[in-house]
């Protein structure tokens, strides 16, 4: 695996001060745009921070493409639902970029209830020479204006503006867990625990409910939707995952309401490993199509699986993320870690997959060589431009040097959100309130 640890360098780390980190600073989502030039993070405080990759400079090749803050804006504010007497958190659950179509960038951000379309644009000129207003901006008395002057554009310092262009609200009763932009570039879906809604990016006052698994009697509820995503090329196909470990592929051409799936991916349970926690650990926390659209990747509590769209009865590949936790499920249930929602990502060529774990560890699996590596995103163990060392968790009694024992893993340091540059081996890893960006060693 070319992006393996020994060839990996820390290119940049965006660190907020540990000591002053608050709950609001915890990063709740991270996402590269389709060119990889921009990287967006959302946090629990409802803020979106966009990083832009620096242009390459020949004088400092080691500083190749560092990411610097480009724009910061408050995407969502805490709200109050008066009907239900509930506070709606401002926490950003997901960010999805729209493919770039002009000079401006667009992204969708969502909290539990409301999706917003943001436009991020640059301004480096401003019109000057109006004579309709005075210097303070007040409109002059028209009777005093005797000539009309045409304003001219004057250069000014670069300004990056973020403006909310659309607000898609009032369509979700439950918590939105994912959003996905369609390849037709005109629609997107937003998914909550029980429903999937289809929106047109231009229309905010109505959406179409395309999946609804809410039972008539909520007492019969035993399954929820955990994530959903559009196929990267086929604009009529989307997949959604459930808390029972299954994935359903739906075709919107078949019916307006996609209650009937066209494919159903599920692995039969292994009776030898059955326990009371079987269902909980099989609950899928994330589903992602590969870039080529041939595969689906799902993350459950202990594993990440790759599914071939042509094979529904079992996954093509299963990778153990942290199997050493299998004996600790009861404790993890007790402290609620078992409900953590880890995400997973593909690299640009779909040959490597990455997902997070505890203790600020994250895992990479090379699908071709079947090699895997555990890396750590931590300030203590890594300095800018240092090479990451692979980490090992020891399960048995004897612990070798550089190994960490299962019992000393820090379960409060979890890497839930990661993203991979669409074309290059650059990854961004969110570790609580820190964002780490790693990239291949520059040769």
């Amino acid at each position: 695996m070319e992006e393996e640890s020994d060839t990996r360098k820390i290119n940049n780390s965006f660190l907020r001060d540990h000591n002053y980190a608050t709950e609001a600073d915890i990063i709740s989502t991270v996402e590269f745009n389709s060119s990889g030039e921009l990287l967006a993070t959302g946090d629990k405080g409802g803020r979106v921070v966009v990083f832009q990759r620096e242009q390459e400079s020949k004088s400092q090749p080691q500083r190749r493409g560092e990411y610097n803050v480009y724009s910061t804006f408050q995407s969502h504010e805490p709200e109050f639902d008066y009907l239900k007497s509930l506070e709606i958190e401002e926490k950003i659950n997901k960010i999805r970029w729209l493919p770039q179509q002009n000079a401006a960038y667009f992204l969708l951000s969502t909290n539990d209830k409301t999706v917003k379309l943001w436009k991020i644009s640059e301004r480096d000129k401003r019109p000057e020479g109006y004579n309709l207003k005075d210097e303070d901006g007040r409109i002059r008395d028209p009777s005093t204006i005797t000539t009309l002057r045409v304003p001219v554009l004057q250069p000014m310092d670069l300004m990056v503006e973020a403006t909310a262009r659309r607000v898609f609200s009032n369509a979700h009763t439950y918590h939105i867990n994912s959003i996905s932009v369609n390849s037709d570039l005109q629609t997107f879906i937003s998914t909550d625990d029980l429903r999937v809604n289809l929106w047109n990016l231009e229309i905010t006052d109505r959406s179409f409910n395309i999946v609804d698994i809410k039972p008539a009697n909520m007492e019969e509820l035993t399954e929820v939707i955990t994530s959903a995503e559009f196929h990267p090329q086929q604009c009529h196909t989307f997949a959604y995952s459930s808390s029972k470990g299954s994935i359903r592929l739906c075709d919107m051409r078949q019916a307006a309401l996609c209650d009937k799936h066209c494919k159903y991916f599920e692995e039969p349970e292994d009776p030898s490993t059955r326990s009371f926690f079987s269902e909980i650990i099989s609950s899928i926390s994330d589903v992602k199509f590969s870039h080529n659209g041939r595969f689906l990747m799902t993350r459950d509590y202990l594993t990440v699986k790759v599914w071939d769209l042509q094979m529904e009865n079992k996954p093509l590949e299963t990778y153990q993320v942290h199997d050493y936790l299998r004996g600790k499920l009861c404790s993890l249930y007790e402290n609620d870690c078992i409900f953590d929602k880890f995400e997973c990502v593909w690299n640009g060529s779909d040959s490597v997959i990455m997902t997070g774990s505890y203790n600020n560890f994250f895992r990479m699996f090379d699908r071709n060589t079947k090699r895997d590596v555990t890396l750590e995103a931590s300030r203590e163990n890594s300095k800018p431009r240092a090479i990451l060392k692979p980490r090992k968790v020891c399960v048995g009694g004897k612990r070798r040097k550089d190994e960490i024992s299962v019992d000393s893993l820090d379960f409060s340091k979890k890497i839930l959100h990661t993203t991979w540059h669409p074309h290059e081996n650059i990854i961004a890893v969110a570790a609580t309130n820190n964002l780490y960006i790693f990239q291949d060693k520059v040769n």
Partner: protein
Amino acid sequence: MFPKGTKRKFSDSGEEPVSGGDQAASPVAAQTLSSSYSLQRQSLLDMSLIKLQLCHMLVEPNLCRSVLIANTVRQIQEEMTQDGTWQIMTQALAAAQCPGDRLVATEVLCRQTDAASQAGQSPKPFSVVGLEEGYHSEEVVMEGDVGTEVTMSTLSPVSPQLSSSYLAGPFGMGPCWEDEEEEGECEEDEEEDSEECVSEGEDGDRDHLSADSRTGEQVFGTFEIKHPAPPPDPALEELFSDVDPSYYDLDTVLTGMQSAPKMGPYDLLESLSTHGPTALSSSSSCRSDLNELDHIMEIIVGS
């Protein structure tokens, strides 16, 4: 969450029963797998019920989490129904008869099964039993003291056969469990006789399982002392009467590992349990506790 370096005895003790034993009272160390499995199951049930109850204290509960926990409770209940444990609880509860405390809301957790209806149970007491059952087990767990620590560890990779065969043991044969309890309740309520007949069938299991009896007696022998079903011990009642459940905030329970590894959740249970069958008269606090339980349903419904 466990801070770095915290020793997590909960699971350690399970992997090495000996080390668990040195903290435990000697009878606990002698537990066989069977009783430890049922204890594990009990404490898992307790924990799940507490989690569900606490869900509604959150501003916006996580539906996925609630559903997964509720499914876990159902699964445990189904298994207990199959091996007969559930009916014993049901019957005990029906005998205790506390109609005012019926929890309609918990039906979702303790879905009425065929077995239950065959046993002649109406759904409401049946659901109460679900909770009641947790309380009883609580007594066991508390008594077992460090037995709790043993509980969680080996739970996950237990095979189904293991469960069915071993479970019959402790519950089927613990004489102090069934008999004592039934006697106690017979005195209180004669009309429940018909229901008690139901359990007679299960008694058949006892004989051939006598091999396990020693451990069963050890567990339930201690259990007997603290059993809440007999007429309440005034001292005991007083001891718990001023336990304020609101004291146990979410953090204590959900991150109980950190400070008091096990006590958070169980204390809460304890406080509830003493208001249950024993102290029916202390209605106001009892009601409020049970009303909270009523909300479990609402949480799951997500309203």
